[in-house]
């Protein structure tokens, strides 16, 4: 059944939302989501790489010989990852510092390679852009959601974006008396939180 352009876009937002449905690309999901801001930043960086590598792969799909396709995909993806690294260093340096090693790690993110291989190498340019955008935004939303839960309980804050001069978001959501449940922003909390969110998704999905 052929899908429309809109469907290709929206499937990434629910049906195939990563990482919940695909259970891939877990490392950044777990590693950086201590705040919404980090989640969004990581998500957008991944989306950027995803969309541009999809564009290039889809445009070149008829030229790339199948034997070396994985190597080509990797070169393409790695190129955009470095582009992202450089741009982030130049324009959002603090975020770059917070996300640390996870930015270069986009290169091994199974989702990105997975989309190149499974989708962009077989579909037209426009569809591949829709796919990349959809999956990327879905990924961003998931990361933001996880970041929101973890930050809310673990730090009593909701930070959407920090600029050098101010913070967009809410601080001390539960009031100043609340002692944050810092387990949530620690390593084990990431796993537990993601696991429980996945359980919720399964519950909602099965209805």
């Amino acid at each position, binding site marked *: 059944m052929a899908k429309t352009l809109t469907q290709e876009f929206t499937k990434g937002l629910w049906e195939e939302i990563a990482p919940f449905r695909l*259970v*891939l*690309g*877990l*490392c950044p999901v*777990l*590693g950086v989501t201590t705040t919404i801001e980090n989640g969004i930043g990581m998500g957008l960086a991944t989306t950027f790489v995803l969309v541009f590598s999809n564009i290039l792969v889809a445009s070149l799909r008829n030229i790339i010989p199948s034997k070396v396709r*994985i*190597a080509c995909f*990797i*070169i393409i993806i*790695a*190129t955009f*990852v*470095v582009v992202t*690294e*450089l741009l982030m260093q130049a324009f959002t340096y603090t975020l770059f510092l917070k996300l640390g*090693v996870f930015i*270069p*790690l986009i*290169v*091994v*993110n*199974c989702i990105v*390679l997975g989309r190149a291989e499974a989708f962009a190498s077989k579909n037209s340019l426009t569809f591949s852009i829709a796919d990349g955008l959809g999956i990327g935004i879905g990924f961003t939303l998931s990361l933001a959601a996880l970041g929101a839960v973890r930050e809310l309980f673990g730090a009593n804050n909701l930070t959407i974006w920090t600029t050098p001069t101010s913070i967009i978001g809410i601080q001390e959501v539960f009031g100043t008396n609340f002692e944050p449940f810092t387990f949530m922003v620690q*390593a*084990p*909390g*990431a*796993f*537990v*939180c*993601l*696991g*429980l969110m*996945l*359980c*919720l998704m*399964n*519950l909602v999905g*099965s209805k």
Partner: protein
Amino acid sequence: MGYMEIIIGGIFVNNILLAQFLGNCPFLGTSKKMETAVGMAMAVVFVLVLAGVITWVLYTFFLVPYKLVYMRTIAFILVIASLVQFVEMFLKKSIPALYAGLGIFLPLITTNCAVFGACILNVDKDLNFMKTLVQSVAYAVGFGLALILFAGVRERIILARVPKPLQDTSIGLVTAGILSLTFYAFKGMI
């Protein structure tokens, strides 16, 4: 930093999986059965150590002198991808028995954050050659250890009466969290 600290640190305190969040996809993907977990663990040890050493050499003797550090992401991933290819071909031809055991896990390793991440961490830490080698081995052993322990626990969970929506990955993640919590035991021990 002494060797002992690198070893204890790499295996337990800064366990690449549980403390640094690297390599989670194979961690969850290959831990349902002890057999696969052991296979994956061995494959990772093999590739991670080789890749760690080779990327260090590449970084120290090529990228740094030629001021190409910003290209390390590309350089490393290409090294790892070709290394995996090469190891696969080599094993297939020369040690078929080992290939039969590790073969299916090798392609997965190309997209394993643990391998790539360990290479990056190694060069970031500015270690010398021997220490890089020891550090890679420690990371790899830490990965294998966590994976195998996790598989032991997961084998039991599969037999428990876990509620439906929690089954499989969901409960796996929660358990991985507790696993990571138990590794807090080693905090401060280096």
